[in-house]
């Protein structure tokens, strides 16, 4: 670097500028500090260091799509009517005019056909929900593969896992609201799952639906959960997630000058703030592009909910795919003892296994600590190959996830590839045990050989 840079460099200060006279911004800061005393907290945090790596952006996508969800959701709530009272549709969508439907469905049509930008907002809301959950999934995998959940971040991992669960519940509550044929079918399946609960099942179902399915209270009840209870919890947990992130400081990849004892990167003000802020606009822009061009959940095509009808090829939103797959491949096991019915065919795939999966995810950091005996703090990330068993476990889980997803769409696969539906299901019943096991050993072997080639 032989260039004399002193003359040109304005933006690359290596030390903080010392202000002689408070600038206008400084004046505001002083006014605020005299009342709020923020100076001490801000001193450290305004120039807080954030390491840079593309994979650290995944959680940001989740955060920003949640903001898109809040904004578009507020818009939708101005017109949506969470009521199952019957009305006759008189709106501008010709094929449904004169038909009896719930106010929830009629107001969804109203938003889609008579409010300018309403359909755009509805589609953005649905797409960003998909993106929110997808980004949380990928973020979770990144944190898992690189060992970023290790001490002292175990609790933040647990918070993240709960956020993912809440996101999925929020999504399910949301797409049940329009009261169209598809969402009603989803609720009916939920009712069947609830009814399978031993001892309390039918009571839980009657308390949920205010009597027999479908009743007339489930939409208003889901609505308040969807717009207040669950988002409130999500918001609170996101706050805790971010506060812990700031407190622990971000993990970083090892490298020259980057150790367990320091964190190297760009300061929050201005670089990180600009990059993260700009990224919000990009996430918003991409969601708007999808909302404008890609139709999603065209509820007017399904028609209002009628419990005696169903659309062929009924499919839930993608994140429900594994539950759907599990339900499809579990054989029809049921036990009858002393005049009671135990529906293993519903309990195992829809109640027990999702709980087990959630527990494994939430307790993973503690299980790993117990197995390895490693109780030290870790701030440097691991390459996936350097933790072969963990990586192989994830490979097996991803394989199982993919298989269940395919099993959840077995009817669509059968039609598309002209295969026998029953054989696909029989194959899946075996494959779900065999293929993830193979994936585990292959991935483990692969990691170890990558380690070997690193050493050469």
């Amino acid at each position: 670097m032989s260039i004399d840079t002193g003359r040109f460099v304005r933006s690359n200060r290596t030390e903080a500028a010392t202000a002689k006279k408070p600038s206008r911004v400084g004046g505001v800061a002083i006014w605020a500090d005299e009342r709020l005393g923020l100076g001490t907290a801000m001193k450290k945090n305004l120039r807080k260091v954030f390491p840079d790596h593309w994979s650290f952006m995944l959680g940001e996508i989740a955060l920003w799509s949640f903001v898109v969800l809040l904004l578009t959701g507020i818009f939708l709530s101005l017109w949506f009517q969470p009521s199952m009272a019957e009305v006759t549709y008189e709106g501008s969508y010709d094929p449904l005019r004169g038909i009896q439907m719930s106010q929830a469905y009629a107001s969804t049509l109203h938003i889609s056909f008579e409010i300018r930008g309403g359909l755009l907002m509805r589609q953005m809301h649905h797409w960003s929900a998909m993106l929110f959950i997808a980004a949380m999934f990928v973020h979770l995998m990144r944190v898992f593969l690189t060992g970023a959940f290790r001490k002292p971040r175990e609790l933040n991992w647990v918070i993240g896992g709960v956020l993912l669960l809440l996101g999925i519940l929020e999504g399910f509550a949301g797409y049940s609201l329009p009261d169209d044929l598809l969402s009603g079918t989803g609720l009916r399946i939920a009712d069947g799952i609830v009814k399978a609960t031993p001892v309390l099942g039918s009571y839980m179902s009657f308390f949920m639906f205010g009597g027999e399915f479908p009743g007339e209270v489930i939409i208003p009840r889901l609505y308040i959960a969807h717009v207040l209870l669950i988002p409130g919890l999500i918001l609170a947990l996101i706050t805790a997630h971010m506060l812990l992130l700031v407190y622990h400081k971000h993990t970083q990849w090892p490298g020259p000058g980057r150790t367990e004892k320091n964190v190297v990167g760009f300061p929050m003000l201005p670089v990180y703030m600009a990059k993260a802020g700009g990224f919000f606009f990009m996430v918003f822009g991409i969601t708007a592009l999808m909302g404008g061009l890609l139709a999603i959940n065209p509820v007017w095509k399904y028609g209002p909910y009628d419990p005696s009808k169903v659309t062929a090829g009924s499919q839930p939103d993608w994140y429900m795919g594994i539950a759907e797959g599990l339900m499809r491949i579990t054989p029809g096991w049921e036990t009858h003892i002393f005049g009671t019915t135990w529906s293993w065919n519903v309990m195992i795939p829809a109640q027990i296994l999702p709980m087990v999966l959630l527990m494994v995810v939430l307790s993973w950091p503690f299980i790993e600590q117990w197995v390895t005996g490693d109780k030290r703090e870790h701030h440097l990330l691991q390459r996936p190959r350097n933790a072969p068993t963990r990586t192989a476990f994830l490979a097996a889980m991803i394989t199982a996830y993919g298989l269940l997803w395919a099993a959840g769409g077995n009817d669509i696969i059968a039609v598309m590839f002209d295969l026998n539906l029953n054989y696909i299901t029989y194959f899946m019943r075996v494959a779900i045990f065999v293929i993830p096991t193979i994936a585990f050993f292959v991935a483990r072997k692969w990691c170890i050989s990558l380690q070997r080639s690193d050493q050469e």
Partner: protein
Amino acid sequence: MNTNLPAERSREVEADPIANPGLPAHTWRPTDVDPHAERRAERQVALLFGLSAICTLGFLVSYFALSIGEGGDTFLNLGASTVALGLFMSGAFLFMGIGIIQWARKLMSDQEITEERHGAASPQEDRDATLEALSAGLEESGIGRRRLVRNSLLGAVALIALPPIVLLRDLGPLPGDALTRTIWTRGMRIARDVLGTPIRPSDMEIGDLINAEPEAIFEVDDNGEHVIEGAELQIAKSKSAVVVVRMEPDEIIPGPGRENWSVSGIVAYSKICTHVGCPISLYERTTHHLLCPCHQSTFDLADAGKVIFGPAARPLPQLPITVDDEGYLVARSDFTEPVGPSFWERDSE
């Protein structure tokens, strides 16, 4: 830039025999050292912000210019308003975002800075002081010593958890026997589910399938108002929907005691899947198989509704049918077992 403390370095020697070389030297970007490049980057960023502003104007124009609803403008069969608003909103945000990021990458400092980490735990003296305060507080409260006070409080607190649970009692009525019966009664006609018209056996060819409901669903009073409506109607439909199919009489293998439940090859089964309750609708006339579109449980309607594939555990309930004086298909009785998904207190023999 290397901030490793000497003490730490010596500790790490064993684990990592290669000394930490420290951060690589910073290299200047063209925009740092070349005023032309700097100017160009400024123009790029400003151009992006300008494009964003143009898109925002486009958004406003298309909001007012394009009509929606009945006879609204379309573009490639899509609602023109939705497409234009989406594209312009997307442009407005994307150009803004790209502009800001470009500004950060090209014109803001790219000098990495280093911060020391601290352990997650508090300093030892803070921890000691807190523990001391905690035990002093607990000691002064007497919660350990005054057992009577503590235990009576615990008991009262445990009890106070009950009212919130009890308050939820009115969320819904108790199930009672609601799940075990439907609105089908002896002699109720079977009606087509859209038209509400009754069915004569001669209306059906071999291989026909009719989606049907009990006639009560369509009943109107003297003023032409439906007798069953609203939530009650939805509940009735969710349990009483049936499929009526006709096959060759000798193809039917009747279940025990069901020899007279069919009328010249016509049988009626509950349309509600015994797995989790989807309405079943896909029928194969040659095999008499009925397939649920939700989880692909398959039932054989020629063989007492037996499950031949999929996750369902129980056969479809059969509706016993006959013909009335006028020759229309009617139910002989309600279903003889609960329809729909299993529930715990369901007595399945």
